């Protein structure tokens, strides 16, 4: 059994205690709500995109330490990034979570996409039930991107 220290890295607990970019954005910002039907967690992602760049992002909702810190780290990572880089990052992150691509094949890591702090979430893979927690914010982000 993998140890809890693999899951609850200090940086994760920090984001959990002090979540970044909490709040809402008024329309015309896009807004998506993600549910984890297994545990009832809900995440709101608000997104402003200006000239193809994520100019602002806010996160709302409730969830466990993993889903909350993943959302917080996600918000930091995507803010100011061009939309196509954001998409590449989502893909890279999902690959790290061993989520397969559309065709069910493993996602090869793209070395040009840097994960930075997000690597702290790597340990989640050892706790398969928590993968859905970690990816919730990211799927909701994708939905918010679709809505534009």
């Amino acid at each position: 059994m993998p140890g809890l220290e693999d899951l609850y890295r200090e940086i994760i607990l920090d984001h959990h205690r002090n979540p970044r970019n909490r709040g809402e954005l008024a329309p015309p910002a896009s807004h998506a709500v993600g549910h984890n039907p297994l545990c009832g967690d809900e995440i709101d992602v608000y997104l402003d995109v200006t000239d193809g760049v994520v100019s602002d992002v806010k996160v709302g909702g409730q969830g466990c330490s993993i889903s909350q810190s993943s959302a917080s780290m996600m918000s930091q990572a995507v803010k100011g990034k061009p939309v196509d880089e954001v998409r590449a990052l989502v893909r890279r992150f999902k690959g790290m979570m061993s989520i397969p691509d559309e065709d069910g094949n493993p996602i090869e890591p793209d070395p040009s996409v840097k994960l930075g702090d997000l690597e702290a979430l790597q340990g989640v893979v050892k706790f398969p039930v928590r993968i859905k927690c970690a990816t919730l914010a990211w799927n909701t982000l994708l939905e918010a991107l679709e809505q534009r």
Partner: protein
Amino acid sequence: MTNAQLDVAAIKAQFPLLQRELNGAPLVYLDSANTSQKPQSVIDAMSTFMEQSYAPINRSAYQLASEATDAYEGARTKVQRFINARRDREVVFTKNATESLNLVAHSWGRANLREGDVVVLTQMEHHANIVPWHMLVQEKGIQLRWVPLTADGQLDLTTLPQLLDGAKAFSFTAMSNVLGTITPVQQLCAAAHDAGAIAIVDGCQYVPHNVTDVQAWGADFLAFSSHKMCGPSGVGVLWGRESLLDAMPPFLGGGNMIADVRFDGFTTAELPAKFEAGTPPIIEVVGLGAAIDFLDGIGMASIRAHEAHMAALAIATLTERFGDDIQLHGSTDTEVRGATFSFAFRGIHPHDLSQVLDQRNVCVRAGHHCAKPLMRLMGVNATARASFYLYNDEHDIDVLADALDGATDIFGF
């Protein structure tokens, strides 16, 4: 209250999974409200049946098939006696309680409900007793009314007559899977009948833990699942009043449920075959029969007494140790509650809590427990839930408490 009635150590010894050690320590399984573990006698009954008597039922004339049919139909009689139904043809085997409730909503509902008709539910229902009715809202335009709750998680019956006024059906749980609340089933059935409504009881959490008597209740339908009462997955029960079942259209169509099929139509078989389309869960029904034998051998009254004792002890232990840091949802009166506890602990998210408890092999569920409307009412997304069954002993409560202490070390804020 003493615990003289149940020899838990001897009971626990009959559950192979509870002998399992993970990371060098035994499992403390506190998730029986979700699904229960299986005693050796049930596992053996299924294996032996597959090894010696497996055959199609109700279809073939040879001796092996008739042995298998006897085993299957014998289990029906066991279920009938276990819930004190009048006749065994009132007992329908489904795949789970969810199918049982869908069967009622679909077959009874479609035949008896028109636009504007009212069905009354309670605010603490499981999704299985909500979504099938929502589907009838969408399809037929029926209306739902909800019995509200008191602060300690019991049904608030003050407005029940108004809610039931003009209603066609009242469908409610006999025991909440979130709060542990046991509802006054007999009184609720009577209230339904007074209003001219039928009474549908979700017995998922009640039947495994208490003496059940559908005739004393005066209920019209009862749904429950084998897997929560020491039996296998893959089989549920719908009991229904014969006259209602007889009058209902069928649910699933196919083999076994027909009297005749022609190119231009079909007629249905008699009860209970009418509602058992296709090859039934033969092995599983046999397993359920063995589970009933097992539970009967211990005695449902003793099981209930043990669980009331466990509930009282859990409340005492946890509040003593953690005071205001733990919030146990539901009533503290063990007369109206079973040994299923949702709780909040020191602001730690239930998912994290269950992860940390798991480190000590304590299995509790974290989530919405398929009762999202109730969760919203409680103002939470999720709770942690510890549920005790006949194989849990007092020591398990201490292990839980110790493990909770450990959680604080990580999320110490």
